């Protein structure tokens, strides 16, 4: 009985109908979390060249070519809002893909105020269910 209930819960947990419009088809554990280790929110970065360190808890990193449950690859969103959660993440200068399984990236941004946010994508670059994205942080590159 208990086992059946778990199976049913699992089906709900992994099932799509409810969340289909809000997330992609690849499941993630509910406690998985993606976050920007560095820079910090509000960080001032003279020169505008820096490494972004990408953090992930309770899930794994895989290159884009690998399809494995509870894994994904990082995308850095630069100066843009979250894209749709049920489509492939765009690939342009505002949406940087790290399909080789990288967990750090060197960025160079012009003077001004910029936003950074991480969004994990599955093997098809589609966000997971639930989608894993970090807080959107702001950094300042002085003139």
């Amino acid at each position: 009985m208990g086992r059946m209930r778990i199976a049913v819960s699992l089906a709900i947990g992994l099932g799509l109908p409810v969340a289909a419009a809000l997330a992609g088809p690849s499941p993630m554990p509910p406690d998985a979390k993606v976050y920007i280790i560095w820079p910090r929110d509000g960080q001032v970065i003279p020169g505008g060249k820096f490494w972004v360190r990408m953090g992930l808890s309770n899930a794994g990193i895989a290159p884009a070519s690998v399809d494995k449950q509870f894994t994904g690859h990082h995308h850095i969103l630069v100066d843009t809002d979250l894209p749709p959660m049920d489509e492939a993440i765009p690939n342009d200068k505002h949406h940087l893909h790290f399909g080789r399984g990288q967990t750090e990236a060197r960025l160079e941004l012009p003077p001004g105020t910029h936003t950074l946010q991480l969004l994990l994508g599955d093997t098809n670059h589609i966000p997971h269910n639930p989608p894993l994205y970090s807080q959107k942080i702001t950094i300042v590159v002085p003139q």
Partner: protein
Amino acid sequence: MSITRRRALLALAFATLLAAPAVAQQTTASEAAHDHGASPAPASAPAGQRMPAPHDAYVYIGWPNDGEVIHSTRFKVWFGTRNFGVAPAGTNVPDTGHHHLLIDTPLPPMDEAIPNDKRHLHFGLGQTETIIELPPGTHTLQLLMGDGNHVPHDPPVMSKRITVHVVAERGVEPVASSKQ
């Protein structure tokens, strides 16, 4: 989200995370070609050869720092990787690997699979951080990347070996001796 559903998902995640080490721990550390679980054997480098790694690839322990005094027996270790990618065990993408955290042990042989025991923790899902528990005392930590078959790359991609000092939390009795 119901508690039952959450628990089931957690159990599933946990089982997946634990599956590979649980199987591998039954084998002895000296077996060169031991089985790390249900993953199909990847098309890896031929026997006796190691997967190449770029010379500028390196890993480092992002936290704790070398010499860190940690006031808890339970703490997070995060794995930094530069000029290299992370991939789950059992996959074979060039210039990627998965992390192994060596605790209180020197480097294993570089031409065979990294042992899988409590001194050699495998992160075959492609994890980039972990939470470990160590008794009060002085400990060493070192990261070593393994390929799809858990064999170090050529050249090996590994961190500096750091030393940390775990101090008993308030109310916790210190262990009489941390010497092995």
